């Protein structure tokens, strides 16, 4: 077997497994895809090797022997009559042609059916509209995007009771959206993209018994201020969340400070999530909002970009550039220090609250 050919065949197998596409094929179809001859014994030996290595299954595929039809017959048939050209094989004195068929043992790709996007603090989050527009243009199908806005939050983030109020509103909005999706025959599990303070609100919804009935698809947190030890493993195991990707900015200067001012926050967006089932990916040159700069956003949601790939590909083979596993020994900053700085922040909240309230009235 020529090494260059087999490398090419192997690359094609890896592509298919990685993207979760074209997992089922006949020898002839694969030969055509890799520009080899149908009767190439080496190719068949290569594919049979995949079967021996439990990477693929082999089963005979039957093809209608009638010249003008020649279609692959579906499994689960008696193979006495062609369901397409209706030729009766006994009557015609012919038998279906047999050829080797293979199925790679991997998951199929998935689709982005609908998405909820949640912004961060101190922002109008124009990226949400840009995301909605870009995703609508880049996907070859329609995927509704629920742009969730909770207003321009500034000092509000210093008060836990305000978090809870915002999280409850978010959960209620999610529930309504899920009910509407169900009526539209969309899946009941939306995918979610959340940024910064939006990630903390999302984590509160996930932890709230009031919203324990809500289930989600794949979640992307960008510049997360969720604690690194947040129990994503439990949520995934319980089926509340399908998978989570934590996109970390290598130059994020805001996330490390969140735990000192925002109750319940942590540096998930710099340290990474400790949960074994979470996928942490670092973009070295991104700052706190670098993910949403139009050119970066465009790359992330392009066909082979990290976000679209995470949302659509089987995860067993998903190894994006920048993936890392955080060290296991993360500890929050000393409690006394955090309590002190948070008390200070809470004080600032009360001093500025009337102005914030007025500002929200004038410019929500």
């Amino acid at each position, binding site marked *: 077997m020529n090494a260059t050919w087999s490398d090419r065949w192997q690359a094609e197998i890896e592509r298919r497994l990685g993207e979760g596409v074209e997992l089922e094929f006949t020898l002839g179809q694969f030969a055509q895809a890799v520009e080899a001859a149908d009767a190439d014994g080496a190719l068949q030996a290569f594919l049979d090797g995949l079967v021996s290595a439990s990477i693929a299954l082999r089963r005979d*595929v039957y093809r209608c022997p009638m010249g003008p039809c020649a279609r692959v017959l*579906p499994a*689960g*048939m*008696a193979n006495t*009559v062609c369901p397409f050209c209706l030729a009766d094989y006994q009557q015609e004195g012919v038998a279906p042609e047999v050829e080797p068929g293979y199925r790679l043992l991997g998951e199929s790709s998935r689709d982005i059916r609908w998405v909820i996007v949640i912004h961060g603090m101190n922002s109008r989050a124009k990226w949400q509209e840009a995301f909605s527009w870009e995703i609508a243009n880049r996907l*070859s199908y329609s995927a509704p995007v629920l742009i969730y806005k909770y207003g321009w939050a500034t000092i509000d983030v210093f008060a836990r009771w305000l978090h809870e109020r915002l999280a409850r509103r978010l959960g209620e909005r999610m529930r309504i959206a899920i009910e509407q999706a169900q009526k539209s*025959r969309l899946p009941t599990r939306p995918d979610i993209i959340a940024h910064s303070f939006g990630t903390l609100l999302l984590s509160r919804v996930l932890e709230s018994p009031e919203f324990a009935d809500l289930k989600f698809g794949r979640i992307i947190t960008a510049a997360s201020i969720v604690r690194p030890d947040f129990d994503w493993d439990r949520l995934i195991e319980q089926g509340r969340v399908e998978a989570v990707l934590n996109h970390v900015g290598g130059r994020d200067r805001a996330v490390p400070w969140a735990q000192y001012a925002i109750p319940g926050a942590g540096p998930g967006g710099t340290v990474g999530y400790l949960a074994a089932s979470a996928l942490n990916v670092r973009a070295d040159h991104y700052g706190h909002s670098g993910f949403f700069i139009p050119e970066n956003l465009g790359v992330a949601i392009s066909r082979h970009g990290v976000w679209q790939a995470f949302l659509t590909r089987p995860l067993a083979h998903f190894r994006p550039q920048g993936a890392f596993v955080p060290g296991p020994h993360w500890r929050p900053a000393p409690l006394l220090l955090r309590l002190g700085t948070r008390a200070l922040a809470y004080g600032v909240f009360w001093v500025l609250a009337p102005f914030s309230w007025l500002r929200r009235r004038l410019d929500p």
Partner: protein
Amino acid sequence: MGTDPLSKLQLKELVRRVIVAQGNAFIKELLRGTTARIGASKEDFAANLDAAIDAGELTQEKLEAWLAEVEGWGDQHLYLIEPPQIEPAALAAGIAGSVHAGVLNASASLDFPQALELKHIALTDAGLSLLWHQGKAGWNRFKAKDFSLDEGLEHYRFDAYRQRLDRSVVRFEWRYADAYCLVLIHRNPEIDHKAVFADVRLSLAAIGCPDAALQPIPLNQAVKVAASKGKGVHSTRFELDGGYVEMASTLADGGIDAVEPVRVVLQAVDTGQFDRAQGMLHFAAEEHGTSRRIAVQVYGREGRLRIWAQCKREDVLRIVELLWEYNGAP
């Protein structure tokens, strides 16, 4: 035809006829119930079944029970129709007073006449079952017997055909607990379904059911719901008077769900906008509880299924139950 026991010779004759028509997997299953060897070819099966009959291991009772499970079930057409407007309790008297009283609980018939003929009625507390037989002859191309002949300056070619005798079975099944009845018709393309419907109607009227045309129950919604569930749908066609959309997987195993570009097109179709739907669905053992993988074409408007695999009674009933569930879903 009564309930007279068949002689061993008659049993062997029945077995030979059945072997021609039945799938090997099912005959093997029958042989496994005996201590006889199984074998690999139809000839082996015939010899081994004869031996089992001679040894008294394969009795008429066993054979009839097996036939009731497999003959006339699978690789056929199936219609879902509205049940007759009659109280089930009145059926016993209706049958007893009819010309068909003699076939009530009759033993397996060897007779496959040219015209459709009612051969068996089974009446229980749970349901009514009627069974018709028809012998349909056909011709199979048989190239091994082709020959050519030169006579003088002329050259002749003779293409050989071997006669095939189909044991065509038609069934009417009514389980009182279900909101539908089934009419199952052998796959032979020479059987006129309208004529079968007329015969079924006549027989039902004869046993006391109101004389009314059989009304197929449309299954458009079943196809639409199956398509929205995704898995197991191999092809779909949604129609309205002004046009149609059609999608299909050309894979042997995987359905539309396994072909991303086709799958996303299906997701974009608002099936509610279409009046009619048909599709090829696959029912798999692990997912749907059937004994094997079974491909079924559903013609929604006609209320008709074309079951493409040989299977057993319980498989057919399971498939119909699933489709009925889909048909009633929003």
